[in-house]
C-alpha cells in the first residue's frame, strides 16, 4: 500500500545537531518497529527527514515544504524550542496536526494554536523535583545561571513558583549568551555568595564546562543541577569530575514505564548504546502519534485533532495527557538523577529512586 509519510525537520548541522541526532535515532527506530508490526493503518510508514540547520527560519520553510510539496500525512516537531516555535506556526497555518516532541518552552502553547499537542515534557516538569529535594536536604538559596535561550526563562518562572512554595530564596537569575564557555565571573560571585543550589538549563557542553571549572577552581555548590548532566556525553567528557552532579531528566532507560524495556533493548541492539532523554522525547512523540492515528482510524486532520486533544496514553516518558485548550503536556513527570560511579541514579521521585541522593555534593578534596 501507499506509505504513510511522516515529516520531520531536525538539525543535522548547527548547534543542535548533536542532541537532535538522538531524537532522530529514536524516530527512525520507531519507523522500523512500526513497519515490522505491519505499519500504521496497514500502510508502511516512511519518514521524510530534513536538516533545519538549527535555524528556526529554515525549520519553518522545511515544514512548508513537507506540507505543500512532499504532501506528508503526519507531522512531528523539530528539536528545540526555537525551531518548534516557527514550525508549529506553519502547521497551525495549514491546519495540520503536529506533535510537539522537541520544544519544552511553554510559550509555544500560549498562542491559541489548535493543532499542536505537546508530548515532550514542559519545562515545569524538568524542575519539579527541585522543591522536594531542596526541602529534604535543607537547601535554602539558589542561583539560576543559564544559557539564554527559549526554555531558560520558562525555567525561571517555574522555579520562582517552587521557591515561593518551599521558602527557597532565588538569589539571582543570570543568563549568558549561547557560545559562552567561561564561567569565571560567576564562579567568583558564587564563591562569595555561596548559593546552596546552582541550577542551569541548556546543553551538555555547558554542564561539562561548568563542572570542570568548578573543579579547577576548587569550588562546589551544595547542589549542582543541569539538564545536560542527564546526557551520556556529560559523564564521558567530564569523567570523575561528573560525580555527584545532578541532572534534570525526563527519561531514564531504567524507568518502568510502558514499553520502555523493549524500547531500550531495541535501541541498544540497533545503535549499541542506551537511549538518553533526547531519544525518549523522540520516541514518546511518535508513540503518541501512532496511538492517535490508530484510535482515529484515519489521517483526517480534524479527527486526529479531536482525538489528540483528549487522548491519554502511556509512553516511555510516562503518562501522556495534554491540556485540551492549549495542547500543553500535563501528564509527564520529571526526574532528577545523580551521577554515581559514572552512571545516572534516579534520586527523585521517591517512588522511582534507585539511589539515595548525596547532598551536599562532597567537596573536591574529600573524594
Amino acid at each position, binding site marked *: 500500500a501507499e506509505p504513510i509519510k511522516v515529516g520531520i525537520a531536525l538539525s543535522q548541522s548547527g548547534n543542535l545537531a548533536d542532541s537532535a541526532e538522538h531524537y532522530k535515532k529514536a524516530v527512525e527506530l520507531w519507523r522500523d518497529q512500526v513497519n515490522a508490526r505491519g505499519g500504521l493503518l496497514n500502510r508502511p510508514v516512511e519518514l521524510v527527514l530534513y536538516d533545519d540547520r538549527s535555524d528556526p527560519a529554515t525549520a519553518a520553510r522545511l515544514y512548508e515544504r513537507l506540507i505543500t510539496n512532499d504532501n506528508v500525512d503526519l507531522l512531528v516537531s523539530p528539536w528545540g524550542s526555537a525551531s518548534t516555535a516557527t514550525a508549529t506556526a506553519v502547521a497551525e497555518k495549514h491546519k495540520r496536526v503536529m506533535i510537539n516532541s522537541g520544544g519544552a518552552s511553554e510559550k509555544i502553547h500560549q*498562542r491559541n494554536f489548535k493543532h499542536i499537542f505537546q508530548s515532550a515534557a514542559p519545562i515545569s516538569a524538568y524542575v519539579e523535583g527541585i522543591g522536594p529535594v531542596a526541602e529534604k536536604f535543607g537547601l535554602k538559596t539558589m542561583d539560576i545561571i543559564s544559557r539564554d535561550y527559549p526554555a531558560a526563562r520558562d525555567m525561571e518562572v517555574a522555579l520562582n513558583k517552587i521557591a515561593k512554595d518551599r521558602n527557597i530564596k532565588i538569589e539571582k537569575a543570570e543568563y549568558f549568551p549561547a557560545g559562552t564557555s567561561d564561567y569565571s565571573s560567576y564562579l567568583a560571585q558564587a564563591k562569595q555568595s555561596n548559593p546552596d543550589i546552582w541550577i542551569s538549563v541548556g546543553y551538555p557542553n555547558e554542564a561539562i564546562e561548568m563542572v570542570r571549572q568548578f573543579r579547577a577552581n576548587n569550588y562546589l555548590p551544595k547542589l549542582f543541577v543541569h539538564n545536560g548532566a542527564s546526557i551520556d556525553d556529560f559523564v564521558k567528557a567530564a569523567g570523575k569530575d561528573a560525580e555527584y552532579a545532578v541532572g534534570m531528566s525526563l527519561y531514564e532507560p531504567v524507568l518502568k514505564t510502558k514499553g520502555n524495556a523493549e524500547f531500550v533493548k531495541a535501541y541498544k541492539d540497533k545503535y549499541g548504546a542506551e537511549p538518553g532523554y533526547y531519544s525518549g522525547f523522540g520516541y514518546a512523540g511518535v508513540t503518541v502519534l501512532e496511538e492517535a492515528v490508530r484510535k482515529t482510524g484515519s489521517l483526517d486532520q480534524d479527527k486526529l485533532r479531536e482525538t489528540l486533544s483528549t487522548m491519554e496514553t502511556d509512553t516511555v516518558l510516562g503518562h501522556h495527557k495534554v491540556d485540551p485548550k492549549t495542547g500543553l503536556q500535563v501528564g509527564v513527570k520529571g526526574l532528577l538523577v545523580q551521577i554515581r560511579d559514572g552512571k545516572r541514579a534516579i534520586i527523585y521521585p521517591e517512588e522511582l529512586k534507585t539511589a539515595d541522593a548525596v547532598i551536599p555534593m562532597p567537596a573536591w578534596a574529600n573524594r
Partner: protein
Amino acid sequence: MKSLVIIVVSAALAAVIPFVGSEYALSFTVQLFVFVALAYSWNLIGGYAGYTHFGQVAFFGVGAYTGALMMDAGFHWLLAAGAAGLSGALLALPLGGAMLRVKGPFFAIGMFGMARVCESFALGFDGITQGGTGLYLTPVTDLKPLYFVLWAIAFGMVVLTWKLDNSRLGIQLLAIREDETAADALGIRTTRLKIGTFVASAIAPAAVGSLYATYLSFIDPATAFAPMTELTTIAMVLLGGMGTTFGPLVGAVVMSVVNELLWSRFPEIYLALVGAVILAVVLFMPRGIVSFAMRRAWWWVPAARSSLRRLASRPAPSRSPKEAH
C-alpha cells in the same frame, strides 16, 4: 537594453509564482527575496563603496525586533516594516559616522562586533525583548501580501542598483572603493557619499528583518542576529560578483537553488557539498559569476556602466582640444 529586459523578465516571472506555484515555492521565494534584498544592500556598501563588512545582520536584527515589538503592540505588519526600515536608517547614521573612518579588515570585523553588541542588547534588555525566549507573534494566514511586499523590495533594490551602476554617483562610489584618498583630493565628497550609502544599505535589511519576523511569527536573538545569515549573504554577493548589477541576484539564486537541490537529497553531507560548489566557483571564477561572464563578453550579459559607454561611443559633433577647456 539588456539590463532592463533581464530585470523585467525576472520580476515578472517572480510575480506569477504565487498564482502558479505551491505554497512551498512561495516560501522558497520569500526566503530568496529576503536574501536578494540583503545581498543588494550589502553590495551597495561592500561592492560599490568598497566597505565590505560582516555586520549587516545588525540592521536585520534590529529591524526584526523593531518590527516584532510594533506588531506585538498591535500595529499592522506593513507599518511595522516601514518603522523597521526607519530604525535601520537611524541606527546606520551615527554608526556610519563613527565606523566608516576605518577601512578594510578593521571595518569588516568592527561591524561584526557591532552586530554582536546589538545581539547582546536584544538579550540584555529582556524587559522589552524577552531575552533569549524570543518574541512570539500572531502568524499571518496568507503569505501573498507579504510575498509581494518582499518582491517589491527585492526588485526595488535591483532597479536601484542598476540605476546606480549607470550613474556618476555609482562611479564616484567605485572611486572611493579604489582609492579614497585620491577620490577625496579630487573633490568627491567621500564622507557624505559613504555615509549616505551606508544608511541606504541599512534600510532594506531592517525592513526585511521585520518582514521576516512576520513570516516566522517568532524572533529570538539567535535568529535575528544569526552570523549564518550574514555569511550566506556575503557568499551570495561574492559568488555572483561584487559591485555588479546582477551579481547579487545571480549569487542569491544560484546559492538558494543549489542549497535546495542538495539538502533534500544529501541531508548528511549537503553542507560539505555546498562548500564544494562554492569552492569550484571560486577557483574558476575568482571574481564571481557575473564578472566572469562580463570579462568573457557573453552576448546576454549586460556591460557594466553601459550608459556611459553608450555616451562615449556616440559620434561626437566636434571634439577638438580647444573644446576640452
